[in-house]
């Protein structure tokens, strides 16, 4: 149907992730299908608790204890990487975490920690690694790139630490970079600088990017494709511009309307994301949806193609918005 002629670099197919909790079985992800094309960038957007971080953890093979994958697959260059917890792709996927604070062990020098990973996954000797790392530190505009090797994580500021982690993610020359809201903890100006650096590095090296965020502004700067996640399911996918300009799914529409830049007043979506242990039947958005139809609480809506490479999980998307 829509334009996936070449094989995507990373594809997530019908992935479901369940976690056994005290409150019952949590269906964190349910039938998620996504693809990151070679050299492309996909943004995954959604509210807190919609399963964004779990999706990344599944891709990286670091699902929390007690998590099960009842169905689905994660394919990297056509290989299933879910079954071996990502062992075969170590060094080929770089990860930029959300919280730079405890991403590095505080008792070891930051440089040594990155070099240890390079020793395992990058060709060359320690000398080459050091030079390459200093080069990367310079590329991410870390002050005093040479001296940074000998510093401990706490000797960097938040923004510097985030730059350090971008360098770490790129240190083994991955073909895919996975980023989990890497700028959420930073102030707006630093956020901007870091996004610019990241975008530039990705473009220069021809890397693919999977970027998870809840910020549409950030999304528009770094991603050309977007997937909107709601309560563990994909609500809408398509080119970033098109989705941001004319969101089709009622949830995407309301979520975008909430953005302070667009809203005339502070808007919200009534209700909350359902608990992962107690999701409503049928369309998971129906309790909050202003365009509720009688079929919504019964049938799980399939992804429907909507032209221009877009797809929507709502049979009523062509209907004029209500409410």
């Amino acid at each position: 149907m829509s334009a996936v002629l070449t094989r995507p670099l990373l594809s997530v197919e019908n992935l479901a992730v369940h976690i056994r909790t005290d409150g019952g079985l949590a269906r964190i992800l349910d039938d998620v299908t996504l693809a990151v094309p070679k050299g492309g960038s996909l943004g995954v957007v959604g509210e807190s608790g919609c399963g964004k971080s779990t999706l990344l953890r599944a891709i990286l093979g670091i699902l929390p204890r007690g998590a099960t994958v009842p169905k689905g697959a994660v394919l990297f260059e056509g290989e299933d990487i879910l079954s071996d917890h990502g062992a075969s792709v170590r060094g080929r996927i770089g990860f930029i975490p959300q919280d730079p604070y405890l991403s590095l062990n505080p008792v070891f020098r930051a440089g040594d920690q990155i070099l240890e990973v390079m020793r395992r996954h990058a060709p060359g000797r320690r000398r080459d690694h050091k030079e390459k790392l200093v080069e990367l530190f310079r590329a991410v505009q870390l002050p005093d790139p040479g001296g940074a090797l000998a510093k401990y994580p706490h000797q960097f500021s938040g923004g510097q630490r985030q730059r350090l982690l971008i360098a770490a993610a790129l240190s083994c020359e991955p073909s895919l970079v996975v980023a989990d809201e890497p700028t959420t903890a930073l102030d707006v100006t630093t956020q901007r600088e870091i996004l610019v650096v990241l975008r530039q590095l990705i473009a220069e090296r021809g890397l693919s990017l999977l970027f998870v965020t809840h910020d549409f502004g950030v999304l528009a700067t770094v991603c050309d494709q977007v997937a909107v996640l709601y309560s563990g399911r994909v609500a809408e996918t398509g080119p970033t511009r098109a989705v941001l300009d004319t969101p089709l799914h009622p949830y995407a529409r309301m979520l975008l309307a909430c953005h302070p830049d667009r809203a005339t007043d502070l808007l919200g979506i009534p209700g909350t994301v359902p608990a992962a242990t107690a999701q409503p039947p049928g369309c998971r958005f129906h309790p909050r949806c202003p365009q509720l139809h009688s079929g919504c609480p019964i049938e799980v809506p399939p992804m429907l193609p909507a032209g221009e490479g877009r797809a929507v999980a709502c049979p009523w998307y062509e209907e004029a918005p209500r409410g």
Partner: protein
Amino acid sequence: MSASDARSVEPSHAAPLPGNPGEGRGGLKRPRPRFPALRRLLRDPVATFGLALVLFAVFVAIFAPWLAPYPEDAFESHILQRLRPPSAEFPFGTDNLGRDVLSRVILGTRSALLVAVAVVGASLAIGVPVGLVAGWRDGWLSELLMRVTDVFLAVPQLILALALGQLLAPGLTTAMLALALTYWPFFARTVYAETRRLRGALFVDALAGIGASTPRILLLHVLPNAAPAIVIRATIGMGFTILTAALLGFLGVGAAPPDPDWGLAVAEARQHLPEAWWFPTFPGLAILLLVLGFNLLGDGLRDIADPRLRRSRH
């Protein structure tokens, strides 16, 4: 000259300076100061004093038989010269059996330190693994370990020592057993807290993600984070143990006569007070100084380990 200049320049200012050694070539080879923690400790006069006291005690303990003027006074008695006041011949005087108090203080250093090291060592050997396992695991095993820890924490140290002394033979081994049994929970709780804190840290997930085994993660990556707290706790525990061991000696369930034990000496001296003031004073001073040394050193180490405290001190 240029190297020290470069270090004093703020990194953010350093970048545009041409030929700055922090950039490029020099960056990889900048000499690092060796033993930075020791240097920082020596900058603190109080902690240095503590360290000096401890090192002095270790020195005395090692060379005790050669340092003591009358090494045979550990066991022999000379009734004719009992309770002599301090003089040139006996700088600390003699005790109720005519033995040189100075010699017995020197000879007692070794057992005081041995008790401290053995008790703290045994406590570490129990407490650290318990803390690591309980902090890492969820569920019944963790609960069980920590509740057992709580039970031991609730037992009063002296009462357990006295009870064990009655059950087994009273002596130094029994006292050490009782002290170790009541001190390990402190290490278990310290290590437990640190392991719990780091268990969810991303670097731990990343290690698991690249295939590191659980023992490797715990011993090589989590435990070093707890090391400062453990070292401080152990140092203060040494002083504490010496004090308690002396107290047990005083109560008669620690070292037995004729061992040259400081606490025992103070106990024996009770009957000869206030005339023979030198008899309890010098062993008591030895206890005081060694405990003080360990506590000051522990405090100094804590200041180094906690950056917030470090900043507030200067």
